[in-house]
C-alpha cells in the first residue's frame, strides 16, 4: 500500500512539475520583446553563458578529436583504410560527438551555474524583490539566460566539431602520417552538408532548448534553501544529460536510419 501511494505521489509530482515548467517557459518567452531593454541583458548573458564556456569546449573538442584519430587510425590501418580517417572523424564529430558531448559539457558547466544562480536569487528573495518592484523576473532574469544558452550551444557545438577535426588532423597527419591531401579530400567527398552538418546543428538546437529549459526551471522551482539549491543543481546536470542522450537516440533514428 505504501509503495503504491509513493508511486502515485511521484507521478503526480512529475506531472505537476512538468506543468509548472511549461507555464514557466510560456510566461518567460511568449511576449513582445523589448529590444532596447532586452539586448544589453542578452549580451551580458551571452558572455557569461556562452563565451565563458568556450575554454572547456575547445579543450575537450581538441582532445576528443585527437583520441578519435588515434583510435580510428589504429583500427583502420588494419584494413588498409587509413585514407578514411578524415571522414570517420568528421562524421563522428558532426553527427554525434559534437552536438552530444558539447551539450553534456554545457549542462555541467553552464546549466548547473544557471540553476545555482537563479536558485540563489530565489533564496535571497531577489526574485521576489523584482516582482514587488513591478518588474517581471521571468522576463528580466529568466528569459535572457534562456535565449543566451539557446543561441550559444549550437555555436559551441560547431566549434567543438571544428577543433575536433583540427585536433584529429594534428594527430593523424602530423603524427601518424596520413596524407594531408587525402585526409581533407576524402572528408570533403563523404561529408554532406544537409545530411551531416545540418542534422548535427538541428540536434544541438534541440539539445540547447532542453538543457536550458531544465536549468532555468530547476533554478526557478527549487526550494529556497541551501539544500534545495544543491539538489536542484545536481538534478539539472543529471536530468539534462540523460535527456540529451535519450533525444540523441531518437533523433539519430529519425535522421540517419533509412
Amino acid at each position, binding site marked *: 500500500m505504501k509503495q503504491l501511494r509513493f508511486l502515485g505521489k511521484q507521478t503526480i509530482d512529475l506531472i505537476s512539475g512538468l506543468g509548472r515548467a511549461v507555464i514557466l517557459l510560456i510566461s518567460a518567452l511568449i511576449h513582445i520583446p523589448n529590444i532596447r531593454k532586452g539586448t544589453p541583458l542578452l549580451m551580458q548573458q551571452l558572455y557569461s553563458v556562452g563565451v565563458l564556456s568556450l575554454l572547456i569546449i575547445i579543450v575537450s573538442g581538441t582532445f576528443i578529436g585527437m583520441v578519435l584519430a588515434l583510435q580510428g587510425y589504429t583500427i583502420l590501418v588494419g584494413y588498409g583504410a587509413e585514407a578514411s580517417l578524415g571522414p570517420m572523424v568528421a562524421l563522428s564529430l558532426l553527427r554525434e560527438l559534437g552536438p552530444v558531448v558539447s551539450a553534456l559539457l554545457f549542462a555541467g558547466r553552464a546549466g548547473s551555474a544557471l540553476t545555482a544562480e537563479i536558485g540563489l536569487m530565489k533564496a*535571497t*528573495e*531577489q526574485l*521576489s*524583490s523584482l*516582482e*514587488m*518592484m*513591478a*518588474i*517581471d523576473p521571468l522576463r528580466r532574469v529568466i528569459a535572457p539566460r534562456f535565449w543566451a544558452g539557446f543561441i550559444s550551444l549550437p555555436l559551441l557545438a560547431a566549434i567543438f566539431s571544428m577543433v575536433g577535426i583540427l585536433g584529429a588532423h594534428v594527430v593523424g597527419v602530423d603524427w601518424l602520417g596520413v596524407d594531408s591531401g587525402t585526409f581533407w579530400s576524402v572528408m570533403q567527398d563523404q561529408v554532406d552538408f544537409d545530411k551531416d552538418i545540418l542534422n548535427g546543428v538541428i540536434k544541438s538546437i534541440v539539445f540547447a532548448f532542453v538543457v536550458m529549459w531544465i536549468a532555468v526551471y530547476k533554478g526557478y522551482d527549487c526550494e529556497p534553501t541551501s539544500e534545495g539549491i544543491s539538489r536542484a543543481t545536481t538534478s539539472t546536470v543529471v536530468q539534462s544529460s540523460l535527456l540529451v542522450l535519450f533525444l540523441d537516440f531518437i533523433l539519430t533514428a529519425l535522421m540517419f536510419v533509412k
Partner: protein
Amino acid sequence: MMTKSEPEIQLVEIENLTFKRGERVIYDDISLSIPKGKVTAIMGPSGIGKTTLLRLIGGQIKPDSGNIFFNEKNIPLLSRSELYEARKQMSMLFQSGALFTEMSVFDNIAFPIREHTELSEDIIEKIVLMKLEAVGLRGAKSLQPSELSGGMARRVALARAIALDPELILYDEPFAGQDPISMGVIVRLIRSLSDALGLTSVVVSHDVPEVMSIADYIYIIAEKKIIGHGTPEQIRLDTSPLVQQFVKGEADGPVPFHYEAKTYRDELIKIPPGSVS
C-alpha cells in the same frame, strides 16, 4: 499637520481574509485596515504567517477568500498588468535586504528608477544621492553588496524601496538580528521617513519594545485570528491573557512552554509489564 477632525483614509483594507496552505489554515476570516500616513505594526508569534500577510497585500499569493483593497482596488482580482501598476505604488523591504548582488549600491537604488521612468542619468544620480542621504549612506554609493554589513545592506534596501516614492512600504521583520545601534538606526529611519514623506508603513515584527516605540497602531495576530489591536497604550492595557503573555514576553501562559508530550513520569520511568508501580 493633520487635525483630529480629519477622517482617516484607509490605504489598505483587508476584509474577511481566509488563507490556507494546503490543509493548514493560516488566517481564518480576519479583517484589518491600514490607515494612510501612519505606521501600523503587525505582531505575533514566530511562524504565524506574518510575512504571508505582506505577500497577500502585495499580490504575490492569492487568498482563499476575502478582499484586499489597496487604494480601492481589490488586489486578488487584478489582472497581471493592473497588479504591476498597483505594485508601482508599493515597496517591500525584505528581511535579508535582497539587494542585487551583481550591482553596486548606486545601481541597486537606481534600478527601479531606470526601469520605470525615462529620466536622464543626471537626474537619476541626484535622486539616488538624495535617497542615500536619507538613510545616511551617501558615502557608500560605490560599494558592492558583498562589502556591506547586514545593517547597512538593509538601509540600502530601504533607500531602494523609497526610490520611486511609493505610497506604501511593507517591512518584513526589519529589526530581526540587529545589534542595538543598527536597531536604533532602523527604528529612527522608519519613523522619520514615514513622517517626512507621508508614507504609509506596515511593519511586521515580533520585537515588542521597538514596535511599541514607533507604531501608531498595532495588530496582534495569533492562532489564525487577530487577538488584539489598538494603539500601543491600548495594547499595554489589554487584559486578554494571550496579548499580555506576548507583550510581556512571558515564557509560559496561553502559549505553553512545553510542547505536547506524554507525562514526564511515564517517559522517564518505563514500567515493565506485570510489576508493581
